[in-house]
């Protein structure tokens, strides 16, 4: 394989995974260009810098010497134009960079939907290092803030502001937090968790406009109901979209994002797109064309690196999984657990009577093959759930062996027994026995199974 110059735009998880995986497999020349930061940092950790859990340095997964050691060349530059014809990039300052293969991994930008006042100083989303700096600047000394938009970033921003003792009003359009993605019980638990931390969560509240003060800074938020809330800082967290404006002049086919085929290649030969900015033309069943997600970026990076190193590999994200933490409430999902249960499925849902802990397992009515696990405040083992979903294990078998899936720390109470009791109440004619608790025996069996 001859040596090629592979240029990667964006040093987030997608771009960096690609670079590292290429380096593991080849001696191609690798250049990673970023306008945002000198080095790769964990975007998911931005909130922790603001909250004082970590310093920026701590969010870098690799030491600064790592890149030179691995011959991954880093450039701090902004790409203005991609010339696919001559395979070269025009970067700010008039310089050009030639490439043999180009990987676009430019991530997202925060959405704005044309509200009056959305561009005022003190109104912003949270995506980049620069956003964090702006947030630091505009929240200094304020006594109230409003966060708008019921997604994960909205909760994170509320948590960030709360950590600095700034009272937060959190406006969410839906009747319950993210009720379009979570079943009502889990959604309600998240509402409760947000409120338990003293956040003024307003459900069913929509933004009308943002008003400025005499200095032209954000001052008040007015809702569609006409309520006016003081807001020297407004977190506008209504989702993200692919960061692709700079490609409009390139001729690369764009939809919502950069359109890619099964091998993550764009309409321009030798140009690929991965991560938040990519739009998969033929997504797998149950998956969205654009998935702005850490895990998706990483899997895409791994896949593309194989293709670029002479082993053409189609993108297959495998079985869906995700996780998050809402204040102190951890959430994990394996497989599909939609808000609306499909007609051919049934659900088993157990919830702790007092604490915010829950387990949900969805399964096919016909044959009982499990289709999804959702955990609130409880940790389950990815490998085990993955395997059971992949094999389509029947729910009764899964329940009998459920102890093996538990991943909570030692000494934690295990609730699999409660879940099984609930199942047996619902199916008294044919009760399930709790056969495998978490423990040594289970571990032996797990190793054999994999």
């Amino acid at each position, binding site marked *: 394989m001859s040596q090629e110059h592979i240029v990667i735009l964006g040093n987030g*998880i997608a771009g960096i995974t690609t670079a590292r995986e290429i380096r593991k497999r080849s001696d191609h020349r690798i250049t990673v260009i970023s306008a945002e930061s000198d080095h790769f940092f*964990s975007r*998911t*950790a931005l909130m*922790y*810098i603001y*909250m*004082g*859990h*970590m*310093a920026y340095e*701590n*969010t*870098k*997964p690799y*030491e600064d010497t790592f890149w030179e050691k691995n011959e991954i060349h880093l450039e701090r530059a902004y790409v203005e134009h991609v010339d696919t014809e001559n395979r070269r990039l025009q970067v700010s300052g008039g310089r050009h960079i030639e490439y043999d293969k180009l990987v676009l991994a430019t991530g997202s930008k925060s959405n704005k939907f044309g509200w009056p006042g959305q561009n005022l100083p003190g109104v912003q989303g949270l995506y980049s290092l620069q956003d964090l700096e702006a947030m630091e600047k505009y929240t200094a000394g304020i006594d109230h803030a409003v966060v708008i938009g019921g997604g994960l970033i909205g909760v994170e921003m509320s948590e960030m502001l709360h*950590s600095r003792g700034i009272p937060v009003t959190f406006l969410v359009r839906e009747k319950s937090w993210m009720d379009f993605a979570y079943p009502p019980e889990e959604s309600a638990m998240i509402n409760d968790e947000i409120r*338990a*931390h003293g956040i003024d969560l307003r459900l069913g509240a929509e933004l009308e406009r943002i008003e400025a003060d005499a200095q032209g800074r954000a001052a008040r938020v007015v809702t569609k109901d006409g309520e006016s809330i003081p807001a020297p800082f407004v977190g506008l967290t209504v989702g993200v979209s692919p960061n692709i404006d700079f490609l409009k002049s390139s001729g690369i086919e764009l939809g919502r994002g950069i359109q890619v085929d099964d091998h993550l290649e764009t309409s321009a030969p030798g140009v690929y797109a991965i991560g938040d900015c990519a739009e998969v033309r033929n997504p797998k069943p149950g998956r969205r064309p654009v998935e702005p997600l*850490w*895990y998706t970026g*990483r*899997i895409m990076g*791994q*896949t593309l690196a*194989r293709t670029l190193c002479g082993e053409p*590999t189609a993108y*297959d*994200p*495998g*079985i869906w*999984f995700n*996780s*998050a*933490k809402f*204040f*102190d409430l*951890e959430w*994990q999902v394996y497989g599909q657990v939609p808000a609306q249960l499909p007609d051919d499925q049934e659900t088993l849902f157990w919830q702790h009577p007092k604490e915010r802990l829950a387990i949900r397992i969805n399964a096919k009515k016909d044959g009982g093959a499990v289709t999804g696990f959702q955990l609130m405040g409880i*940790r*389950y*083992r*990815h*490998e085990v759930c*993955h395997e059971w979903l992949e094999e389509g294990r029947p729910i009764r078998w899964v329940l009998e062996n459920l102890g093996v899936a538990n*991943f*909570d*720390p*030692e*000494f*934690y*109470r295990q609730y699999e027994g409660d879940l099984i009791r609930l199942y047996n109440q619902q199916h008294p004619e044919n009760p399930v026995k709790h056969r495998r608790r978490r423990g*040594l025996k289970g*571990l*032996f069996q797990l*190793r054999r199974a*994999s």
Partner: protein
Amino acid sequence: MSLWNSLEKLGLALFLLGFGLFLYLGPSPYRLDGEGLQKLIDDGKIYGHHKDLITEEFQPLLNRDYATAHAFLQDADRKITEVNERTDSKIWDYDRGQYLYSLAREASLTPIKGNLTLWFLLTIGLCCVGGLLYFLPRIPQEPAGIKNNGTFFSKVKSRGWIGIGFGVFLIGFYIALYFFPAYITNWIRLADPVSRALRGWDADRWFFYGFLYTITVAVMGVRMMVQYRHSRYHLVRTASVMFFQAGFAFLLPGILEALNRPYFDFKNAWPLNYTFFYDYNLNTYTSSAFGWFLLLWGIGLAFLLVPLFAFFFGKRWYCSWVCGCGGLAETLGDPFRHLSDKSLKAWRVERWLVHSVLVFAVLLTAIVLTNYFTGQNGGEALFAAIKEPVKTTYGFLIGSIFAGVVGTGFYPLMGNRVWCRFGCPLAALLGIIQRFKSRFRITTNGGQCISCGNCSTYCEMGIDVRWYAQRGQNIIRASCVGCGVCAAVCPRGVLRLENGPETGRFNEVSLVQIGQGRIDVT
């Protein structure tokens, strides 16, 4: 709500008042009178043929006023030197230290002497009550969960001026405790009531230190429990270190002493307990049936229990559940855990340093034992010339400077496990077992890692946990003490401390790799 907040503030005020009074009691004027000198002789504090020499030589010092301990001790030290110049029966360094300590203790005109109980309550008592009042009201004020808000902005926790000041105080305290105890007799005296109750006689510096250590572990253990009250692992583990410190390191040895038995800490294993095989200890152990039991226990602990438990549970059973150094690190040291250096360079230094200390400790013990056995039955003892210098060097460099001054003094500067990570020979030994022959590992949860870095940041041993977690690889590191904080601070439920079969311990399959193709990470 504001009631709890006021209690918190009151707690802080009481603590600061107690600590302020403690500092205030450090210095005092000094004045030795004839009566006092005679009392020291009567109590056997000045002994043997030194009695008359010192009585005679110290006459000019009597009833003289000294503003500071230093002025008094300078004169007293000079007098002892003059005694030595006049006689062939010299006062050697050990006795000199004892005499100076006793003289200073007697000569100090500290107000504590007038009302010991009151001053005990006003200093150590206030600090404890204040500390508890400061920590406990947090429970009703905020939900349980990870409490790291503002850690990196803190003047205490992140090398701000308070943190640096606290470090300087600790370093000074340890230097005084180890090398200049005569300067802190007023503080040591504060532990007299407890020492009298437990053993029947006054506190010496080691009793004072042990007592202070134990209540610090207790009060800061309550803090640790409040901080991690959502995690049963941390509640149980913290209770364990508090129990072992109070019971095994403090009460039990005190009771043994009260019963006229040898001082013995049943959990302090060789080679951390490097004096275990010293001749004076061996002589004590072999002189009674109980002594033989202690000897066998100590050997069984070091060569049977420690490795066996390390095989089953990893080194954590010792380092973060039982050990005294670990106990202090996990309680007083918890606010400073993120200050440990995570760089590859620090890891390299760690491996060289900690294993060098282990080699040093083994050599020391080999020399001491060879000397002991070859010297039995009138034979010519080997290593007679180097034994004492080696002992002194180890005791000074490792036992005092590394374990004490640097080990704890540097908490607010380099994190809470400097000694455990870079210096402890037992940790090195346990680490070798944990790395090569153990069922312990930290398992990562498939592909759930988001590389945020909380695990690495809060690893007190400076392990870059994230390096492993993000590639779905088990964490098997010699230095890991199994404190479990990485698993607690992980926002995505990625890490779990586990004991399991050795098969597959290193070669985990990983879901970090592309969906359908599971790939060996090694």
